[in-house]
């Protein structure tokens, strides 16, 4: 099994791509699907696998730089024996190539096939072969010719237990071609799409096809970070709770960068932070806690995908206000995690004790935390992310 290294995707693939199988990242025009293939091969190679990257629209001298932009150092000497760039580009512009594998005529499918087969044969152990852009191959060599070749490459790779991965951009090819790419060409298809209204402003991925296990039909939002690569993205997590429970501290403890609109240390408008943790990215919005700001709390809560309710574990008088704030945010039905903050104070109640005093559903988890020391907050974040992913 070769993992993709894309957060959540390996779970949906039931652990990764089994040896001898193939996968296509089916991206819509304007959506950056290419990074999926790059992340997959860099994850595999850094995990000890052999990998070949078929460069069809980029000068091979630039390939390693492109990986480096995401923080994946494929030029590192330890990878030298395991990572190969197949030059299917230089022949197009008549340039010389320093690569070991060069396709002399990239616009001739037989020339490409010959080189791919050589790579398949010479890879010393079961590894992964990733195509930078199958659509470019298709543009150069023809739709039918390329699809026939894909079937041939996949069969040939199966003999050697290699995994084949294709980045494909779904330009308006013939319907038959697009159906075949999504259908019979590979064992699995991951759709990489964009949410658009006037412009594309969000990205998602999900499985379209999986033939080696039961398919999980879920769509997840993602962002691409440099460095970092694909990160599951939750556009809005709300952090609410009574006055002085430590909401701003939670936002700042979780965030790589955060700002607060406050006066004399009390939040009077909002806190905003961006989290990048363990393959997941999220924007968090903290509300004020005082009752006079309740109209702002309601405004801030729109379109939240999950909620943290922050409580001061040492101040039980605020618990009822905390539950009331959940009502104000109209977060009923959304995933909620209670952060039992200030667990370092001597009079702090244990999470079990807090649960008995709160009028909230039994299923809502309570996580002990000391936000000022960044303890417990990431456990709470991971828990909430799992719940959000489960809902969506």
């Amino acid at each position, binding site marked *: 099994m070769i993992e993709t290294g894309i957060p959540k995707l390996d779970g949906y693939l039931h652990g990764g791509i089994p040896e001898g199988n193939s996968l296509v990242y089916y991206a819509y025009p304007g959506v*950056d699907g290419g990074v999926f293939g790059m992340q997959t091969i860099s994850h595999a190679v850094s995990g000890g696998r052999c990998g070949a990257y078929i460069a069809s629209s980029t000068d091979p001298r*630039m390939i390693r730089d492109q990986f480096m932009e995401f923080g994946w150092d494929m030029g590192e000497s330890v990878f030298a024996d395991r990572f190969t760039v197949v030059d299917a580009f230089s022949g197009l512009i008549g340039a010389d190539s320093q690569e070991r594998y060069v396709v002399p005529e990239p616009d001739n499918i037989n020339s490409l096939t010959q080189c791919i087969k050589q790579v398949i044969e010479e890879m010393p152990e079961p590894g992964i072969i990733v195509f930078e852009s199958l659509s470019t191959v298709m543009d150069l060599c023809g739709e039918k010719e390329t699809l026939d070749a894909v079937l041939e490459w996949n069969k040939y790779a199966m003999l050697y237990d290699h995994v084949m991965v294709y980045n494909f951009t779904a330009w*308006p090819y013939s319907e038959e071609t697009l159906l075949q790419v999504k259908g019979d060409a590979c064992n699995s298809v991951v759709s990489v799409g964009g949410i658009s209204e006037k412009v594309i402003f969000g990205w998602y991925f999900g499985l379209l096809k999986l033939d080696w296990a039961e398919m999980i039909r879920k769509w997840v939002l993602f962002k691409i970070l440099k460095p970092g690569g694909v990160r599951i993205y939750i556009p809005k997590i709300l952090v609410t709770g009574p006055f002085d429970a430590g909401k701003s501290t939670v936002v700042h403890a979780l965030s790589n960068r955060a700002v607060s609109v406050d006066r004399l240390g009390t939040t009077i408008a909002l806190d905003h932070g961006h989290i990048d943790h363990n393959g997941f990215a999220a924007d968090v919005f903290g509300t004020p806690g005082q009752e006079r700001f309740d109209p702002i709390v309601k405004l801030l809560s729109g379109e939240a995908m999950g909620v943290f309710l922050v409580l001061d574990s040492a101040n039980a008088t605020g618990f009822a206000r905390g539950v009331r704030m959940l009502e104000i945010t109209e977060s009923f039905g959304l995933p909620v995690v209670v952060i039992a903050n200030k667990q370092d104070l001597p009079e702090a109640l244990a999470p079990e004790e807090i649960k008995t005093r709160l009028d909230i559903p039994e299923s809502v988890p309570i996580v002990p935390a000391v936000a000022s020391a960044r303890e417990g907050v990431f456990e709470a974040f991971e828990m909430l992310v799992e719940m959000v992913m489960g809902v969506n």
Partner: protein
Amino acid sequence: MVYNLGISRLDELIGGIKGGTNIMMIGPPMSGKDDITNSIAYHGLIDGNATVIVSTREPGKNVLDWFESRNLNILMEHIGIVDCVTRTLGFGAPETENIKMASSPVDLTGIGVKISQFFEHFWMEIQLRETRLCINSLSTILMYSNLQTVFRFLHVFTGRIKAANALGVYVIEDGMHDEKTIVTLKQLFDGMIEIREGEDGYQMRVVGLTPKPTQWFDYEIDGVNIILRG
């Protein structure tokens, strides 16, 4: 939503170009198409538009220099350049706020991604609702990819221009392509700026944006302005 080219006589005759319009600019080599394209981009910036320029012949830095060196009173953060040249030459220049790198003119997927990223940035983050896209030039792209491939690419992006109520300007070298290529591409555009060689220099006219083609005008390039005569 109405756009002007910034070429006053033509703008008067056209009476404003409605949002979602795609224009082909076709003319012979050395006729000043780069300057005319940049001038259209510049006047958009003056009007508060965002501008995305896809450069297939000049490194992005050179295009940016055209704007910076003229000490223009424009917001540089409203300019986005998709550079299809620098990495083709084997130079590993990093991306900047103004310049995003496509791998090569073959990399239509990458070019498309970078255009989309700039559109999203201008629309969502800076909240500019009027954007110009200038592709200079389609001829270079056509040197690397076949007509069908370029047509597919343009089919998607002229559609995006319409969806975003933006203005698209696409430059083509006259005489470099056969008639079939030009006729095929023309289907995608709402109008043309045609340039030809006249007796005293070059002339331009607009076709398709007015009830009938405008007359041919002699023109000269005066800094960032295009001055029509006649």
